[in-house]
């Protein structure tokens, strides 16, 4: 699928006017997706990006690959359908945090059970952006962004924790202003054999005045000596964290370690890869066990009609089983 020739991020750009707010963290994600696709030398038409509904979901219109902007909360099942019908495509799936964890929570849980080979990215901004800043499922209890009439009455879900519980076999977190790091995560997520989940911390300057770029960057807490901001975000790899399940026996240990990291927040927010396990068969592999020709000849690529529209499906055997012959 990878091309010989060098690709540029701009090869993945469209001419559609981008209407996100100035300073929105979404720009960083868009750019990193384009960079990652270019660096992986993907052929644009071999890639399909599926999104839900929200500011985040508009991303697909800005990327020159097949783009499917779907329904609120349903990005995952649409993406699953695309991938299952043609497993030869690279499929990326994008959601807002409301889209993926609120209304889409059920699909989130059940996608983990499949381990389909695709990358799912959640734009984690703590709010429902496109509907004007209501609390999203990742906003912490008691927090009151400027868009809220009252402090948030719901507790937050922890996307990393939930993804692990659901069964994602690669779990990461990025930060939309750390472009280089995020590109690397997206590439790893795409390359992972199985279902990869990436939570991206994405400031929404318009509605979320709590989890801002400045806050993640620690601009409110300067080192007393150097005067330099002490970022809240830190990289797991910088601490020598090893997320990889090297052998199946390690699964429990690695999962528990990932969970411990997932609980960190506040002044110490880990980004990077929390967990990676390639010992679980992908859904495609599981299907191929039942239908050996599945991967070469998946639903999308099977011929169904002859030159004049003659149906090619041969029902003879099936009909025989249901037929009573002359007696």
């Amino acid at each position: 699928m990878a091309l010989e020739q060098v690709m540029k991020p701009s090869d993945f750009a469209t001419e559609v006017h981008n209407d996100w707010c100035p300073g929105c963290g979404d720009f960083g994600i868009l750019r990193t997706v384009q960079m990652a696709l270019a660096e992986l030398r993907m052929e644009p038409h071999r890639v399909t990006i599926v999104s839900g509904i929200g500011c985040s979901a508009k991303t697909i219109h800005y990327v020159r690959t097949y783009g499917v902007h779907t329904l609120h909360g349903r990005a995952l099942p649409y993406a699953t359908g695309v991938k299952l019908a043609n497993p030869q495509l690279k499929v990326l799936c994008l959601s807002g945090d409301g889209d993926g964890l609120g209304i889409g929570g059920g699909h989130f849980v059940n996608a983990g059970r499949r381990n389909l080979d695709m990358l799912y990215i959640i734009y984690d901004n703590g709010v429902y952006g496109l509907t004007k800043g209501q609390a999203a499922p990742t906003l912490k209890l008691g927090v009151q962004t400027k868009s809220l009439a009252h402090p948030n009455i719901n507790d937050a879900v922890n996307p990393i924790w939930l993804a692990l519980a659901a069964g994602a076999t690669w779990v990461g977190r990025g930060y939309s202003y750390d472009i280089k790091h995020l590109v690397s995560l997206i590439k790893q997520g795409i390359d992972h054999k199985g279902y990869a989940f990436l939570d991206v911390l994405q400031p929404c300057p318009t509605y979320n005045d709590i989890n801002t770029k400045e806050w993640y960057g620690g601009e409110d807490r300067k080192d007393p000596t150097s005067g330099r901001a002490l970022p809240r975000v830190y990289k797991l790899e910088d601490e020598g964290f090893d997320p990889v399940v090297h052998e199946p026996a390690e699964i429990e240990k690695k999962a528990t370690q990932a969970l411990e990291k997932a609980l960190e927040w506040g002044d110490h927010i880990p980004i990077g890869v929390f967990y990676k396990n390639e010992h679980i068969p992908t859904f495609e592999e599981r299907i191929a066990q039942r239908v050996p020709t599945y991967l070469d000849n998946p639903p999308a690529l099977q011929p169904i009609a002859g030159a004049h529209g003659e149906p090619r499906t041969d029902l003879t055997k099936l009909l025989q089983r249901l037929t009573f012959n002359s007696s």
Partner: protein
Amino acid sequence: MGAATVRRNDVSWMIGGPQGSGVDSSANVFARACAAGGLHVFGKREFYSNIMGEHSYFHLRAHTNLVRSHIDSVNVLATFEAETLFRHAREVTDDGAIVYDPSLGKTRLSDVPTIEKRLYADLKTYLISRGVGETLDDLLAASKQRGVTLLPIPFKDLLEQIADEFKVDQLSKISRVVNMLAVGASFGVLGFDFSTMESALADVFRNKAKIVSMNASGARKAYELAGSLAPDFGYRLERVARKEPRLFLTGSQATALGKLYGGMRFQTYYPITPASDESEFLEENEVLELNGHGLAPDAADAAPSKEKGASVLVVQTEDEIAAVTMATGAALTGARSATATSGPGFSLMMEGIGWASINEVPLVITLYQRAGPSTGMPTRHEQGDLRFALHAGHGEAPRILLASGDFEECIRDGFLAFNYAERYQMPVIHLVDKALANSYATVGVPDLSDLRIDRGATAPPNDGYSKDNPYKRFDLGNGPVSPRAFLGQEGTIFWNTGDEHDEFGHITEDPVVRDAMMEKRFAKLDLAAREIPSEEKVKYFGPKGAPTVIVSWGSTKGALLDALDRLWAEGAKVGYLHVRLINPFPVDEVLAHIAKAKRRVGVEMNFGAQLAGIVRERTGIEMTHFIQKYNGRPMSNTELYDAIQAILRGKAEKRTVLTHGS
């Protein structure tokens, strides 16, 4: 009764018993034996939304000729337990017979906990009116009194003999054999060829030799006993020599066959009664073969080698929202894709249907209607979702609606649904109802040789598109249908969105483009109305220009045709317009058949006379009479016969509500 009055090969047979006790296989053996004997059968299943213990029964007609529906009465009622007798003994004709277990005679009505309060009271009244007590013996005595032949079969004794013969230590291990005893006894009193039953047994319990011989041995004993108890019974079943092969199948299977033949390669489902039967049948047959049946000989070369393999991927999803959206995602790749569901699941698909429609995705939804509203009566029958399917989803988006009335239509519509979906690039909702889906019957092998796959306009990869002449998925330039491209194709990148969009599929709120897109989408529906041949839209039965015309749709077709056959034979001038294409509504075809009729009778298995409402909305013509049923039981041809006759005689109210069925 003398041999002269014997009715040959026209029997209404019923077997009943608790769910999960094996009644289904006994009905299966009975039906297959009849079918193997050259007879035609039509069987209907009734059961509770329950796994074990509640009453279920199978009502089967066997006939020399094609049978398409059930009748209200029963000629032979067979059972090994009490509840079936309490529930159904009254349905047995005076010249009929009851196969039963005499050891249950002392069972009292009040001993049966699963009988509803209302029915209990009703039965009590009946027993009192017959001047008897409330035991089974009382009930049977009342039956006997009116002429019914009683066939006591000592089930337990027979079981013990089999246990002995086959050296089984516990009777409980072979308790299911009682079912075949009941079948054996039935065939015995009907005088049917026993060896045919034996091969049906072998068929049903394939690879289980011991089970087959135990059952056969028991059945033979019951067969002989029953035969000896009523040698002159007035009904006979006999083998019929028949040249042409016949299919024996259910409506779900018929629909699945049509879809497979139509090239479906992807189906999603979430378990639900009665839709999951189809998906499970597909799952069991997921590996497919190419070519053969129905394939034009000269195309054989073009076909890929068998080794490449073909298959249908059937995916059980987490809910019906995932089912409809996943199937839509799959359809975008070019795979013919569908989902199958029933009311509650369909209710969850509204947004998905709207998205598919605005994005012009060919998606097929097979909607197995059951009795609603809400959870309703999941295992019972209704044609209640017509209006909902027609208007499914917020806003205005076109879709095609097809409704099948018999097995052949299930096959053809299952096939055609994909053609329409791809040619007009919109969702097709294929309505089947439970009465059709769960019935099983023999039918002639339909001739499908006219069926051709039509994938509509497609844009092949790299079809001359360039930066200056980019592919436009929603091209407004050339008529309402824009050539479709598939995800993954080179040179045809496009975008989709549930928002209103421009020709590329990008969001727009431009009022002018909006109007153009709305008009484009609905123009496809007009196109479908013009292009789909009249024969696929409606079918008219009976004398042309009849003063009374029945208008109906869906599974009532079988009962109507069976009832009408009798009425026609009696000289009744009544026509029947069966509507198969509901949307786009065939205004002209319908008008042509009903505009001049003096009496117009809407026949529907629902409360609201939904099709009649659509007819009036689209043609201005109101039905003069309605025959409706909404008690969850399908219409029998006998009650339809009565109701139509009353209308013909001018003795009916505007609305006749049918209430038969238990």
